[in-house]
């Protein structure tokens, strides 16, 4: 049964490998495999939506509107293209205050991985394998952990945790994401994350990749999923619905919207997706604070 398909969906479908699981240990499951570039990095989008050519350089973003805007991957919301002050700036200020209070005697910075108190480049060390927590963690999980050790409670995903995360990230602005997933625990995490990203789940049998790969650029009643390449250099972000949103909270939102039971913020599955997507942002510069619709 062939129905007229747009060129784009035909292209996306050509990139898809479809496989139902055959492993004896796993019950019957379905995957929508995407064609991740190797080594993974933002340039891999050239073989995916090929929209990277439009949003590569924020200072030179072309003007687009309506049906084509998704091709900019929302980068026109970032600086320098967008000079608007927003809730992310207020969060950064709050994050600075909280950070300075926590960091009396430099204990917090040291725990975060900056023993000399220099925050430049610190954001780029996450996600990473954490020797203390004995697992791969994102920066927000480590913020919660270090604050906890110093007697403060900064729940992963909360406004204050995200505010501190944004403050720390600002010191790495302009520096490209560069996590190494070629070996060790991060490689395992990347592979698990890739698998989960492609797993069909929930009451609609949708994978993350169903929308961000298979339906990328399509109109889902006013919402258009964009590429998952280059998506992880601006988190946590200020959302137009007046919410400072961490990446894992965004994952719960996508799960919610697609009829999938959401998972705990900081759960291993979400962290592995974070590792997978971080690697697909390798080469793209950090941008904090940021805003998204």
């Amino acid at each position, binding site marked *: 049964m062939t129905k007229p398909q747009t060129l784009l969906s035909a292209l996306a479908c050509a990139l898809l490998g*479809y496989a139902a699981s055959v492993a004896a240990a796993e019950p*019957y499951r379905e995957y929508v495999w995407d064609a991740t570039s190797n080594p993974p990095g933002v340039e891999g989008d050239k073989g995916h939506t090929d929209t990277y050519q439009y949003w590569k350089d924020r200072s030179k973003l072309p003007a687009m509107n309506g049906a084509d805007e998704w091709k900019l991957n929302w980068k026109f919301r970032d600086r320098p293209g967008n000079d608007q002050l927003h809730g992310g700036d207020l969060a950064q200020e709050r994050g600075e205050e909280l950070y300075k209070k926590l960091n009396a005697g430099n204990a917090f910075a040291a725990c975060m991985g900056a023993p000399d108190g220099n925050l430049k480049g610190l954001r780029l060390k996450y996600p990473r394998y954490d020797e203390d927590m004995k697992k791969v963690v994102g920066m927000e999980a480590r913020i919660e952990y270090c604050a*906890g050790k110093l007697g403060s409670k900064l*729940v992963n995903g909360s*406004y204050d945790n995200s505010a501190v995360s944004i403050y720390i990230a600002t010191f790495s602005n302009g520096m490209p994401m560069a996590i190494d997933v070629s070996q060790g625990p991060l490689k395992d995490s990347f592979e698990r994350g890739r698998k989960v990203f492609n797993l069909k789940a929930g009451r609609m049998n949708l994978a993350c990749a169903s929308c961000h790969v298979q339906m990328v650029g399509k*109109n*889902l*009643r006013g919402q258009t999923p964009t590429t998952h390449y280059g998506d992880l250099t601006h988190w946590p972000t200020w959302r137009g619905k007046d919410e400072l949103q961490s990446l894992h909270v965004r994952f719960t939102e996508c799960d919610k919207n697609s009829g999938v*039971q*959401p998972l705990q913020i900081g759960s291993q599955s979400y962290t592995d997706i974070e590792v997978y997507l971080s690697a697909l942002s390798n080469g793209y510069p950090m941008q904090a604070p940021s805003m998204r619709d």
Partner: protein
Amino acid sequence: MNRVLIGSAAALILQACATQSEPPRAEAPKPAATTTAAAEPKPWPAGLPADALYDPNAKNGTIFYVPTTDTATLKQADHPRDLSRWLTRSHLDTRGVPPPVKKTLDGPLNGNPEEGKKIAMNTGAGNCWACHALPGDAQPGNQGPSLIDFAKRGMSDEEVYQTIYDRRSVNPMTAMPPFGALGTLSDQQVRDIAAFLQSLK
């Protein structure tokens, strides 16, 4: 009730006995009690992994967290629907999904097109309009083909029923959810939507 659903229900019960390899996060905020003190606490659903955002005593079980400005904690909110019976993205989840099934139509279609329209054009129910254009929708979805004058296709009632019940039986690579096989829609709802589509001239 078909074999697939009974099979997966049995699998759910079996998995309830499997031990979870990881406890829930120790730091997870304690869900606020939403029931009266007298109410019996409800058990964790069988098969649901321990790292799901779920509170058996919340309104619909499935919950999510909302950050609030200038606080260090998260506020719990109710999801409009209990999602615990379907596969999650958790590594701890040991469940699968029902394999594709070509369902024969028992008896005449017997669908109510009016009801079908309500289910098809409702995001919380059939949500067909997320992916398909349907008459009278100002924001038509365009992932799947337009269904605006669907009856002109001349598909048999059974073919339409099978497509909605489990499109994977027609196209294994489809992005369309297998509404019947997953138990997302009841058999009658599938019939109602099929009747609605067959009325679109």
